[in-house]
């Protein structure tokens, strides 16, 4: 089976105070196939964000490996890790990450301009239209609702056409309906593009959008079978 992402016995500890280090990620192993949508479900403090930061090479593991398309990203140099995040990974951040005063299309194009891509507008415009922002492309950050800002953030993450998308609570600022819409769009877009998605969420309804859900508790990964009712409730409003 082809593998897009593999986590091998990953451990990350944090020193808190003078006591024993806290194991934020405690021996996590996971294999994700290309184009698969995987959710890491767990309460706040369960290690979800740490795990995503390890996959994004923003943190170094104390033990284990993070293999993306067979390359251990934990072993990348600073420059290589920056390039990896710029070109191979789309990180869906928070609406507050948008540049103040910039237009939606400018914000969505930011990573492409960093890489001096010449066709930024041609690549980003269809994406924004697909995300329902065709009429809002020239609106500045402050003129957009939170739901619209979140969709700009998604466009920004997908603009470079990354093979892997990391989404950390991407619906945290949205109401239930908007949250479902955004997740439905993200799911559709990634399916169309064959993009691998790792979603971190504490919301079982958000997790229900994934092909596979794992529960993270105290830094350990377990299989998780969500309540079928959440599947229905989560997907009903966005899928025909």
């Amino acid at each position, binding site marked *: 089976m082809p593998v897009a992402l593999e986590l091998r016995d990953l451990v990350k500890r944090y020193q808190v105070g003078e006591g024993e280090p806290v194991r934020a990620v405690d021996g996590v192993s996971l294999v994700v196939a290309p184009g698969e949508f995987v959710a890491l479900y767990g309460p706040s403090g369960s290690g979800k964000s740490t795990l995503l*930061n390890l996959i*994004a090479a*923003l*943190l170094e593991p104390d033990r284990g490996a993070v293999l993306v398309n067979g390359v251990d990203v934990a072993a990348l140099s*600073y420059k290589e890790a*920056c390039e990896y*995040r*710029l070109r191979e*990974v*789309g*990180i869906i*951040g*928070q609406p*507050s*990450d*948008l*540049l*103040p*005063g*910039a*237009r939606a299309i*400018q*914000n969505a*194009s*930011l*990573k492409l*301009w*960093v890489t001096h891509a010449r066709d930024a507008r041609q690549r980003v415009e269809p994406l924004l239209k697909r995300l329902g922002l065709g009429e809002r492309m020239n609106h*500045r*950050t*402050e*003129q957009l609702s939170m739901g619209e800002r979140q969709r700009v953030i998604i466009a920004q993450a997908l603009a470079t056409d990354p093979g892997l998308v990391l989404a950390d609570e991407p619906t945290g600022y949205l109401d239930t309906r908007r949250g479902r819409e955004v997740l439905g769009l993200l799911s559709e877009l990634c399916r169309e593009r064959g993009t691998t998605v790792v979603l971190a969420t504490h919301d079982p309804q958000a997790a229900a959008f994934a092909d596979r859900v794992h529960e993270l508790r105290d830094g350990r990964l377990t299989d998780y079978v969500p309540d079928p009712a959440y599947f229905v409730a989560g997907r009903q409003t966005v899928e025909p």
Partner: protein
Amino acid sequence: MDAAVPLLSLVGVRYGAQRGRGRVEGLLVDVSLDVGAGELVAVVGSRSRGKTTLLQLAAGLVAPEDGVVRIRGYDLAGLSEREHSRLLREEIGLAGQNGPRVDLRMVHYVAAPLLVSRRRKHRRQAFARASVALERVGMASRARQRWGDLSRWDRALVDVAQGIVGEPGLLLVDDVTDGLGMRETAEVTKLLRSLVEETGMGVLMTVSDGEAALSAHRVFSLSRRGLRAISDQSPRPKNVIDLPAVRGGSDTRRDVCL
């Protein structure tokens, strides 16, 4: 342009107003203040009191429901979209808690306002100017650190670097010292004061904590009762500036200085 004309002037500005209990209440009601060149002005207020909105009004990113906002004497309400864009690009710097852009290198994050500029020459110079801005705030040697390894203090400095990357005449700083300790807060505001003194730019900063305003020339308090001056160490003469008629208001002359 007349040197006496302030860089930024808000006159009788109202936003988010509601009429209740026989008077107008709201987020910002009848707010007037000005910022001159070479001046650091601080507005102290608790969360959700309208500090960010005040800066958005100052940059013309939201329009006031009443009153006038002027940059270098130009009424923002009278500017075309193109003129406003030019103003944002060339005159105004925004520094705020924009959240760490973890997928970008620090130099890319700082360069972002220039990268989104429509001017190609700005894009070409963006990274070189970002390096200069990082140097100016003392972060050049740490520019290769990961975001996750940066302290809040470091991030506040990087946010300031992003604000000054376009060498603006007016810098609007949104609560970058929030969550910092006293020493770190003092260092950030000292940096802003030195930027003001060296470059002659005007700075309007919002802060949650009065300690953060100690380096400011003038300090205002923003509360439910409105904007109130609480200290003035301005080097400027305390004079009265003639201003043209206020849109929608009856005042044709206002004392906008303390």
